[in-house]
């Protein structure tokens, strides 16, 4: 039991469960998942489905944060990817042609990758601080998305495209399947292959990593590219879900939610150790919170107060220092402050 309690993900899970339970009080059948027209249908499924873009963006963000970076541009990449795909599709003669949709999706993702490489080059090649490097794309990228859509909402009417964010496959929402695949892929790259180790070491101590023969530059570019790719996929999902691209609003503020999800999941913004499972939980917590707000009818004026309350409770519960101070446990688990990191200045 204590081992269970001490598990890294115990508190995030507990919080998620508590939030879900809260819903149960307000909504009967909250946990019921039914089959409807051969689709799984229910609030739980909805949470994952609506959370899917956030989970994707957070996964990419996790890796970036693990290198002690940050990517503010994901929201803009979300908008750009959706805008470009919808623009291409709306230009098709037959919007339902699978080839045309695939080409559009491919182009959108290719552009996302290019944007990620751009971020990576600014950070790793030129050595600009990540927050500023990605702020550039955050600002300009939103403009680019609007340029693509001409500031309007580009509506498409394409059932293959609709599948990505709003369709079903094998009874499951297709977006959930995409998330599962990307998650599995990320886990494979980082945990099965050695990418994770290199990322954690670059985030933990960049200079030491360089002196161990790690190409920090390569790792950073990979990570920013991956993050932008995830954001691109999320962008397709969001626009496909409503069959339209909104260059102005798609992905607005998603970077904040994504960073929050990563941090709730237990990854430190100072870089180093990261937890993919934690991030997924974090994103689910945020999405559940949103759903809870809708379903228990918190009025919009108090939504933010409610959020503040929940976020505070979440981070307090997760803090070992808080639990120990409040629950009066005798022994302090040592180490003056585990959060503090040594900073190594790269003197090259």
């Amino acid at each position, binding site marked *: 039991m204590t081992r269970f309690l001490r598990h890294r993900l115990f508190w995030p899970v507990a919080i998620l469960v508590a939030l879900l339970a809260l819903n149960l009080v307000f909504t009967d059948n909250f946990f019921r998942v039914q089959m409807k027209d051969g689709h799984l249908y229910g609030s739980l499924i909805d949470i994952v489905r609506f959370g899917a873009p956030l989970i994707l963006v957070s996964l990419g963000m996790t890796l970036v944060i693990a290198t002690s970076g940050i990517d503010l541009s994901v929201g803009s990449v979300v908008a750009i990817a959706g805008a470009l795909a919808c623009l291409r599709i709306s230009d098709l003669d037959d919007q339902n042609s699978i080839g045309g949709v695939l080409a559009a999706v491919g182009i959108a993702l290719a552009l996302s990758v290019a944007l990620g490489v751009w971020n990576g080059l600014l950070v790793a090649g030129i050595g600009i601080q990540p927050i500023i490097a990605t702020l550039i794309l955050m600002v300009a990228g939103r403009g680019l998305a609007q340029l693509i859509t001409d500031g309007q909402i580009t509506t498409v009417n394409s059932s293959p495209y609709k599948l990505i964010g709003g369709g079903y496959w094998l009874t499951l929402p297709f977006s959930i399947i995409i998330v599962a695949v990307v998650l599995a892929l990320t886990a494979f790259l980082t945990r*099965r*292959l*050695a*990418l994770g*180790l*290199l990322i*954690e*070491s670059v985030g*933990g*101590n960049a*200079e*030491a*990593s*360089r*002196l*161990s*023969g*790690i*190409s920090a530059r390569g*790792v950073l570019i990979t990570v920013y590219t991956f993050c932008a790719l995830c954001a691109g996929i999320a962008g397709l999902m969001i626009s496909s879900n409503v069959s339209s691209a909104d260059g102005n609003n798609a992905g607005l503020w998603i970077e904040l939610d994504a960073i929050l999800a990563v941090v709730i999941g237990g990854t430190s913004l100072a870089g*180093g*150790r990261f937890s993919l499972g934690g991030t997924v939980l974090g994103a689910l917590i945020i999405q559940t919170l949103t759903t809870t707000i809708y379903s228990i009818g918190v009025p919009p004026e108090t939504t933010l107060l409610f959020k503040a309350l929940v976020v505070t409770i979440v981070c307090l519960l997760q803090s070992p220092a808080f639990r120990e101070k409040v629950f009066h446990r005798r*022994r*302090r*688990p*040592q*180490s*003056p402050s585990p959060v503090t*990191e*040594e*900073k*190594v*200045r790269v*003197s*090259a």
Partner: protein
Amino acid sequence: MAAPAPILRMSGIGKQFPGVKALDDVDFRLLPGEVHALMGENGAGKSTLIKVLTGVYDIDAGEIELEGRRVAFSSPLAAQQAGISTVYQEVNLCANLSVAENIFIGREPRRLGRIQWKKMRRRAEEILSRLDLDLDVSAPLSSYSLAIQQMVAIARAVDIDAKVLILDEPTSSLDAGEVAQLFRVMRRLKEQGIAILFVSHFLDQIYEISDRMTILRNGTLVGEYLTSELSQVELVGKMIGRELADLEKLEDRPPAREGAPLVETELLGRTGAIEPFTLTIHEGEVVGLAGLLGSGRTEIARLLFGADHAGTGALKIDGQAVSLRTPRSAVARKIAFCSENRRAEGLIPDLTVRENIILALQAARGWTRPIPRRRQDELVEKYISALNIRPANPEQLVRNLSGGNQQKVLLARWLILEPRLLILDEPTRGIDVGAKAEIQRLVAELSDGGMAVLFISAELEEVLRLSHKVGVLRDRRLVAELDNDEGLTTDRLTETIASGAIS
């Protein structure tokens, strides 16, 4: 024994870390006007005892009395205010601040709350000159080598008006001259009645300076002895719990066998760091570098590893001219570099022992070719036991290891790479007697197997014992290259360093 009342008494101290009992029922006392050595192997609990005393960690059991009053410090600040000044094991200064600030921060000279920078700089220069250091005190600390940082930390600690001075391995990268300076200061303080707690793995230093010693083993107290009444051999026996047999076995070093030249430099240099130098390292050869603080030894190592870019000159490996642009390309050519600054340039504190050990090997293979877990475990296991890393738990976070054990982990990282040229910059920093002998034996063995080694150490005996050839540096210039034959002694080395003459 009509000793004066102890100024500090710790009794029944216990400290438990998850999975490790670092201290168990330890008693300790410190008399005014004495230098008291705290002895023990790596991981024996010395630093933990100091941290428990100064409020870095809470204690689990036992009590502390300072001048007869029970105390429990909640932070190092509280300990400092009560008159305990401490130099912790790793250099714990703020490298982003200037040298002067590092000496004075928290007690800057002020008038009406306004910091007097000029006065602070002047006083910092004074204090440093008393330690024979002439630094630009307004330069950031990070521009100085680790050894100098260590001196600055000492300067800070001895300047604080204290009743108790604690020095946890302050001399680990200092050379003989600096150590002598430090001891002069310590003797002066001792005469003023200040109690000094001193930790070092250099037995000679212990015998030179300390009056009394307390020995720990595995977190338990072995006993307290007068230094004059305990021989070195007895001391080592009590520390490790058995006799140490092969401490001095490496005495005579076989002359270098004729290996092919592996690395040749031709007037390789970097402005502001090291004058152009020409040096050849053969296969199977151990080349030692000797010199004073900041003489440029580390700079040579960094150039050979591609950690810094050479401004001038050429480098040849296996007779072919190459330019090492990054450490990565050096590693690809099987050159390894074990940095002196393990905290800033070596370890990733948040990763485990296993991950830290395999890091360089994994980096060399690239991330797409992970080392199979079984192979990792084998390698790690092998070096944990070969270097006696404790606790012998590959999944322990490196940040939780004692300083000496961290150093061993760093060594292991490079050893598993089986390099052709191994550059060791102060590899035995903070390593206990037993392990040091072990590492020296390992170096000798590897070079016999054909590996070239560039060995840098502040301890001239060690350099002499291992190397076939010694390069002498002075003022960032390679001034001499001496073969290690009968005629070469530490005295001659010191002389060469001092005179800067070419032999």
